[in-house]
């Protein structure tokens, strides 16, 4: 290809041609049933939550593996996540997203549980209550505080918000690192084990162990996936069908 550098008009033509959704097609088919369903779910407070990090590509545990690992390690689905930014705290009156009552902006160093407990005991959320509270990460990234116990977040399909504790930030960072690593690369179990060991050392996470789950996949080109169990300090590794087309396992 030869020619002069692109002018503004030519650049605009090319940019518009590369628009994946052309303006002329927007709304052409009318509002779908899905749109109406979304509207209702937003009002009900049950709009699709972001896929928790352990369910995103590269961190999907094969079902059989998850069962075995759960039995041995305390449950890979009981994962926790550090909120990226604690901005809005929503205090819920009941153990469901539809019971939303009040929200406030709190600094990241504030304790959302204490704030909502004060609100609940004052009666601002209904009848005064001193029920135990649990903090989960909402789809918006904010923190939701509900009356309930530790398993409530899992039941609501939300990650549990950790109260600031030594090492918890490092665990959150490890989860992100592993997601990025195994989400973008297809590696075998042996290589994955070395990567995790290295990431644990780099994150200063001592006392953690790596549990490799034997392969249950019958597909020839499977890639390692990882799951975290912070409570028992275990990183589980298993094989799953490769997440990206074209990736070939490296080593392992």
């Amino acid at each position, binding site marked *: 290809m030869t020619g002069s550098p692109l002018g503004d008009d030519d650049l605009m033509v090319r940019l518009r041609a*590369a628009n994946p959704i052309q303006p002329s097609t927007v709304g052409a088919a009318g509002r779908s049933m899905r749109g109406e369903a979304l509207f209702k779910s937003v009002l009900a407070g049950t709009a699709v939550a972001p896929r928790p990090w352990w369910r995103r590509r590269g961190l999907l545990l094969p079902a059989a593996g998850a069962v075995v690992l759960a039995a041995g390690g305390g449950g890979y689905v009981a994962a926790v996540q550090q909120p990226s930014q604690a901005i809005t705290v929503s205090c819920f009156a009941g153990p469901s997203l539809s019971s939303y009552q009040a929200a406030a902006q709190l600094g990241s160093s504030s304790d959302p549980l204490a704030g909502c407990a004060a609100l609940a005991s004052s009666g601002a959320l209904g009848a005064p209550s001193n029920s135990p509270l649990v903090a989960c990460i909402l789809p918006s990234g904010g923190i939701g505080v509900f009356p309930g116990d530790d398993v409530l977040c899992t039941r609501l399909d939300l990650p549990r918000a950790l109260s600031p504790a030594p090492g918890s930030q490092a665990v959150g960072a490890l989860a992100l690192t592993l997601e990025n690593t195994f989400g973008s690369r297809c590696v075998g179990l042996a290589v994955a084990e070395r990567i995790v060991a290295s990431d644990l050392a780099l994150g200063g996470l001592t006392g953690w162990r790596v549990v490799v789950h034997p392969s249950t996949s019958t597909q020839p080109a499977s890639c390692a996936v990882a799951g975290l169990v912070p409570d028992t300090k275990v990183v589980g590794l298993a094989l799953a069908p490769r997440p990206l087309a074209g990736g070939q396992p490296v080593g392992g």
Partner: protein
Amino acid sequence: MSTRAPRDDIARFRAAFDGHYDAVLAYVMRRAADPDDAEEVLSTTFAIAWRRIDRLPPEPFTLTWLYRVAWRTLANQERGNARRQMLARRLALRARSSESDSTDQEALVHEGLARLSPKEREVLRLDAWEELSHAEAAAVLGCSPNAFAIRLHRARQSLRSELGRLGATGPDAPTPSRAKRSKPRSSSAKEER
């Protein structure tokens, strides 16, 4: 702490949702890595709009506010997906190399965009894809229209450089067929809207 007055809020939210669902859906689909991500960002955007209904601006400012929320949500999502997207993009570019010339040209533009900073990328997309005026695009990005115009100028220069590196020059280079359907408006014409 604040409590809600649901009835009026529902009516306001219904109006915003009905009026802008299609545009926000298109905005998100143009930028998300895959349909799952798009759905996630779309629902999060409207969930935030509902939760902050007291801050939802009136028309005609609602759409740019929703774009802004969607943009921030996408930015959070992209941070975690950056490496995966880079690999997926390269694979897609390689796979497209054997396809038609116009697709190849579009892939080059996408690759060029991907090499820009997120803000430069967004400036160009708001201008060319959402076809917003400078004032509207500035509202999405939280800057002044003048600042947007400067950013747009710089972003165009950056994209031009990247496309040059990728071997795309003009006007001798083949023009994508779809581009012939829509004639670009000049920036000054946009400002008049």
